[in-house]
């Protein structure tokens, strides 16, 4: 499982909150979307995945909690500490989530 996947073959992904949680905004269920499809395509577009750093590993890698499981991602491009929330895109951390 990884932080880059496609709708249709997507593993459950990290979801910061239930969609539209408490907003009073409706969440429309996708018609004809495969049942296991995540809420958005995260293959390659702009929507990256927010995850929490569990442990730092050799080779600029980190073990992270995606909310749906654990995976190993590259943290070559961000300064991270255990417990940080980071934004991961296609297996690479590209930014930190503040606050």
């Amino acid at each position: 499982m990884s932080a880059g996947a496609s709708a249709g073959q997507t593993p459950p992904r990290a979801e910061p909150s239930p969609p539209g949680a408490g907003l009073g905004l409706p969440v429309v269920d996708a018609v004809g979307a495969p049942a296991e499809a995540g809420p958005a395509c995260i293959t390659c577009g702009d929507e990256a995945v927010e995850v929490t750093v569990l442990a730092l590993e050799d080779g600029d890698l980190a073990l992270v909690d995606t909310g749906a499981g654990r995976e190993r991602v590259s943290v070559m491009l961000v300064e991270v500490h255990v417990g940080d929330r980071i934004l991961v895109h296609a297996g690479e951390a590209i930014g930190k989530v503040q606050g």
Partner: protein
Amino acid sequence: MKYVDEYRSPEIAAQLSAEIAALADGGHHKIMEICGGHTHTIYRHGIEDHLPDGIELVHGPGCPVCVMPMGRIDDAIAIAEQPDVIMTSFGDMLRVPGGRGSFLDAKAAGCDIRMVYSPLDALKVARNNPDKRVVFTAIGFETTAPSTAATLLRAAAEGLENFAVFCNHVLVCPAVQAILDAPGQDLDGFLGPGHVSTVIGAAPYEFVARDYGKPLVVSGFEPLDILESIYRLLQQRVEGRAEVENQYTRVVPWEGNTRALEVIDRTMVPRDAFEWRGLGTIPDSALGLREEFAAFDAERLFDLPGAVVEDPRECQCDEVLTGQIKPWECGVFGTACTPETPIGTCMVSSEGACAAYYQYGRFNRAAATAGAGA
């Protein structure tokens, strides 16, 4: 940052809706969301139903799968057909139709094509198959380019000799400029991409405000982020301002991720020009590998047809990608062209406007204005 800490509060959603309606004041405001992730959020949460009639959201070119021209798919398949090649790419890429079919068709015909979740996974395939040539077809905007760049650096450090990248990374700003330069363009403002901007920052969009006099607000992906960004765009219009604002400060630093920009610059260089589906050929709009990484560059290692392939006649993706028509106005939308049997690229990725409309039941004007499932 009035709303940032409370971006999921229902009270604020209602309040924002009301404030947007007041600012819109019955006028017409045409706003383009550049990013396919925003398109998806807008339909998933029915955000248009919370906006006054005068606000028209137009979908931009920010879905990397959607802007891949057919000729590049054919090139990628030509690589996959070479002996001892294992082709790897993201799941969505496998279904994108080229002039001679898709990766999936090539796979059915016997090519070794594998879906990966990241370029790092492709590197793993290369390590595990030393007697094969493993190629990763890289696509995406500046969001994904750092991942490819970092993977190239890892491959070089390891001295891996059987790994190559077929680079199709594209740049967001030249595409926005092409849209602004298009004849008849009548946009009033932009929602700027969120995660691309994590990498490039908000500063590169300043030309939109300075040279074209249009406001741009870099926006997050929660429904409230989008509502707040639309509110800020209208506020600028009402006050006669055109500026770049950053609504998504919780992940977007104004100057971007300098380390990511540096690894992109170390491994890649802008191409003179690149063909985009729907937008045509745009100068300096894509990245190729630097000379120093020639040993990893599939374009240098393989003979490519490099042909320009016309889109199928019935396909109107170009008009969808430039906001001229809504997906349901395309003649084959939902009939010959569906997510299962895409004719055009916009139906492939769930970030594509056609796929978003299809999945959320916006099959025609009535459904689109009444709201999905309503």
